[in-house]
């Protein structure tokens, strides 16, 4: 698959009074045309910050300190602000966590849609309005034409997230960065929104970077999955492989803590300890203090992503499998 | 051992976020210094001031309207010149600053005590008492505090015979400024009290029969002290302004014991005849005092507000 988006060795820093912290440390991955990449991890693992960097909206004092972001093989991370703005919405759409606060309460949803469409597409007011109504129908807003002039507070949370999706798709972008799109919704709505997102992106051929901490959502939606831990990618691979045959001890623990129907366990297994805070990431593998299979090397050397069966895992356990790969660096 | 402990405390205080933010804010440091100098100068006015402006035997009309010492005709006896009665402007400022600071301080204390009490009662008791107190607060808040103070001051003064007015003018002033400012403290404290009242440990204390006053004092009060302190700092500057304004309008302290506002009022009459120093120096002092207290208040608020960090 030809990569639509490519991240190369992204480093994101957070300067503080007590020194500079690394919120994202050497993260690389690709997303292919029309592909759905799930990104999972605990809060603070750096997934949302990575997403913000891709749409060029890192909030200061966070800053991109190293690495490259390429869209269609061309760098976008060093574009001037206005050029990057033209990419946002047009090439890369975004969906945020909380639909209740993502919409401007003082404008009708119609106005917000038309405004977005006309910013990116050479359409007149009439054509833009027609397209806006079409989009609202497509995301499943009943009575789209009448609701066009309604204000955000007149919609429920789920309906608002549908409007947000319509806004993200307004200019037919090639990639959508969805940051925890369902976390703020109730469970039954979550499934609907995920199904909608999946269907729309398949229909439009839009690639998705789906950031979430919900492994279940990833399992049923994503093509590939990247597991993040303490600002690094711990494991990345096809979703089926990662779920069924996780190779990184952290992923193993993560999968083990998902209950499935038919389980007769008294208690879900859990990973002891907590993810280290940014200021206190241990040397070597960030997971080593909690790892059940920790080795001497893990406390000293930091593993890169290594080929591990069908996935890639940043774990020394897999160094023996393909020593040649490990040397590649 | 004791010294070690104290050194430890100092070092810890030095190392707190608050101290760090203080050291790294030149504005805070400078305004702290200015405030301190003005407070100390006023506090020790009888010893620091070159003259006693209230001692009639030392002032003489021959010295009237002397310009500051660096201007021709000025004398080193009167560094900032003299006023229309031959009083030393610098000394008048130091003594006047005493009155301004004193009125400011006591009316702030009055407003805090009044407001905190009202807020605690309203928040704790709720119901009719709460509704009544907050309704009064709302109505009062819709009027600017200066107007309220002016009104209270005017009413009290007009109920008193003329000869008694001067004697209790200071009390009236403190009372009216304090009464015009209790509202902000009451609202602040009421809000926090409502939050605290519903917390589980307070509920628990009530269930086991701890006396309400004890609960309020030991559990609720400490939680509201920090915001009250911040507001009080800013209110202190406001109280000084209000006193100066009332004195400038001629309804504040009596002219026999002039505050900075009175000095400015008196000097204002000589602005056009060229004796600018009589009004400008007290004005600059007042401005510097109010500005630095305000800046300190701003800094404390920002430093204690975790959201801005």
């Amino acid at each position, binding site marked *: 698959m030809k990569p639509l988006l490519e991240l190369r060795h992204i480093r994101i820093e957070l300067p503080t009074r007590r020194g500079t912290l690394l919120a994202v440390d050497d993260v690389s991955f690709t997303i292919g045309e029309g592909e759905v990449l799930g990104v999972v991890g605990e809060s603070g693992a750096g997934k949302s910050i990575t997403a913000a960097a891709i*749409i060029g*909206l890192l909030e200061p004092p966070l800053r991109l300190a190293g690495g490259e972001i390429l869209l269609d093989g061309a760098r976008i991370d060093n574009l001037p602000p206005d050029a990057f*703005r033209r990419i*946002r*919405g*047009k090439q890369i*759409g*975004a969906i*945020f966590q909380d639909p209740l*606060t*993502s*919409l*401007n*309460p*003082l*404008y009708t949803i119609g106005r917000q849609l038309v*405004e*977005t469409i006309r*910013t*990116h597409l050479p359409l007149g007011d009439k054509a833009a309005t027609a397209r806006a109504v079409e989009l609202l129908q497509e995301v499943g807003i009943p009575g789209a034409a009448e609701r066009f002039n309604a*204000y955000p*507070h*007149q*919609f*429920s*949370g789920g*309906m608002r997230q549908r409007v*947000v999706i319509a*806004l993200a798709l307004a200019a037919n972008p090639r990639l959508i960065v969805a940051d925890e799109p369902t976390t703020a919704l109730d469970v039954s709505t979550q499934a609907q929104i995920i199904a909608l997102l999946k269907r729309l992106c398949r229909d439009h051929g839009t690639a998705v970077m789906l950031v979430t901490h919900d492994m279940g959502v990833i399992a049923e939606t994503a093509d590939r999955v990247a597991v993040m831990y303490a600002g690094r990618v711990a494991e990345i691979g096809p979703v089926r492989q990662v779920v069924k045959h996780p190779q990184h001890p952290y992923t193993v623990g993560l999968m083990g803590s998902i209950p499935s129907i038919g389980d007769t366990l008294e208690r879900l297994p859990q990973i002891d300890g907590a993810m280290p805070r940014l200021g206190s990431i241990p040397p070597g593998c960030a997971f080593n203090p909690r790892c059940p299979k920790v080795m001497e090397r893990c406390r000293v050397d930091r593993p890169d992503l290594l080929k591990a069966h069908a996935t890639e895992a940043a774990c020394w356990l897999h160094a023996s499998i393909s020593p040649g790969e490990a040397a590649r660096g | 051992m004791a010294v070690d402990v104290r050194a430890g405390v100092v070092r810890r205080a030095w190392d707190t976020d608050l101290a760090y933010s203080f050291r790294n804010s030149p504005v805070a440091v400078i305004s702290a210094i200015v405030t301190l100098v003005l407070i100390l100068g006023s506090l020790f006015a009888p010893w620091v001031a070159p003259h006693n402006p209230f001692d009639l035997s030392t002032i003489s009309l021959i010295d009237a309207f002397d310009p500051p010492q660096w201007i021709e005709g000025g004398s080193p006896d009167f560094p900032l010149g003299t006023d229309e009665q031959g009083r030393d402007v610098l000394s008048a400022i130091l003594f006047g600053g005493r009155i301004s600071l004193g009125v400011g301080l006591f009316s702030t204390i009055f407003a805090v005590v009044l407001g905190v009490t009202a807020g605690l009662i309203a928040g704790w008791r709720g119901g009719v008492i709460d509704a009544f107190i907050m309704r009064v607060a709302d*109505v009062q808040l*819709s*009027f*600017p505090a*200066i*107007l309220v103070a002016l*009104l209270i001051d*005017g*009413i009290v*003064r*007009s*109920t008193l*015979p003329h000869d008694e007015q001067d004697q209790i003018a200071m009390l009236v002033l403190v009372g009216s400024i304090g009464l015009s400012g209790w509202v902000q403290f009451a609202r602040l404290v009421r809000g926090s009290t409502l939050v605290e009242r519903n917390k589980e440990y307070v509920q628990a204390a009530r269930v086991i029969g701890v006396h309400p006053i004890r609960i309020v004092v030991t559990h609720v009060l400490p939680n509201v002290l920090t915001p009250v302190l911040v507001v009080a700092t800013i209110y202190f*500057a406001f109280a000084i302004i209000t006193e100066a*304004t009332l004195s*400038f*309008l*001629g*309804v504040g302290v009596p002219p026999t014991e002039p505050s900075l506002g009175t000095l*400015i009022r008196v000097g204002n009459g000589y*602005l*056009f005849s060229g004796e*600018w120093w009589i*009004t400008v120096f007290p*004005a600059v002092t007042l*401005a510097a005092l*109010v*500005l630095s207290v*305000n*800046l300190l208040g*701003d800094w404390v608020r920002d430093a204690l507000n975790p959201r801005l960090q």
Partner: protein
Amino acid sequence: MLAFILRRIFQAAVVLVAVASIAGLLFPYVGDPIGCLLGQDARPDQIRELRGALGLDRPFYVQFWHFLSNAVQGEFGLSLRQGAKVSRLIGERLPATLELSFVAAILALGAGIPMGVYAALRRGSFLSQLFMTLSLLGVSLPVFLIGILLILVFSVTLGWFPSFGRGQTVDLGWWTSGLLTRDGWHHIVLPALTLAIFQLTLILRLVRSEMLEVLRTDYIKFARARGLTNRAVHFGHALKNTLVPVITITGVQVGSIIAFAVITETVFQWPGMGLMFIQAVSYADIPVMSAYLVLVALFFVIISLVVDLLYYLVDPRLRMQRGGGGHGR
């Protein structure tokens, strides 16, 4: 909508009656106007006669009722000091105060809002830091000090503007205006500036902090993620949301201009109601004091009514509270 307005008008009437009652209660208890009018060595029969003429010998509730019923008709009796009808005195003084307040309010709003927006958008630029420093002076300095400073610079030193009175006025029968002559404008510059500076700086700081707050919200982030231009984000989305809280506080501030006029009028010997009030306070002229009080309350009530209506127009959430269909939440 109608119910809302009616409710607000009813509340306004309650406040007015409350203030009028307080003012009326002052009547019998406060002050010794006879002593002020006749001096210390008046004969008892003179005192009795004057008391009768002023109606001060009647029982308190009669006086109170008299005051209330007259106040409703805009009559506040005779000024104890000047012997003239209070309503006529106010009629003479009102235009001066209203013109001063009006010019000051326009100045404060017209300069304060753009300066606040600028200071928020160009945070850290030289000009916005200059604004913030100057505004700190503006909020810190007492109004009378600003007036004296302006007089010192522009009247005494430069001799550009007069510092005393209203200048030449035009009598329109029911209104004397200083805004129709060059001389009148010349005279209003310094007092209006003095009165405006405090409000201006307050509005500047308020607009700035509200704007910064709004710029941090999710819907602004989402508007950026949609690729809208900075112009659309700042002036289309952020500014309108900033204005919602600003309207409320500005309303209160505009009201307080009337009150601060007391100080400005004293500094500049501006022949308005504030100067009249200060004189009334020092002579215990209760009818004038009560009339002023009721009038100021009336202004506050009118302004807060206008503010509520503006609020209503800007914020659809209020407009829709009743009758708005759809999925309410």
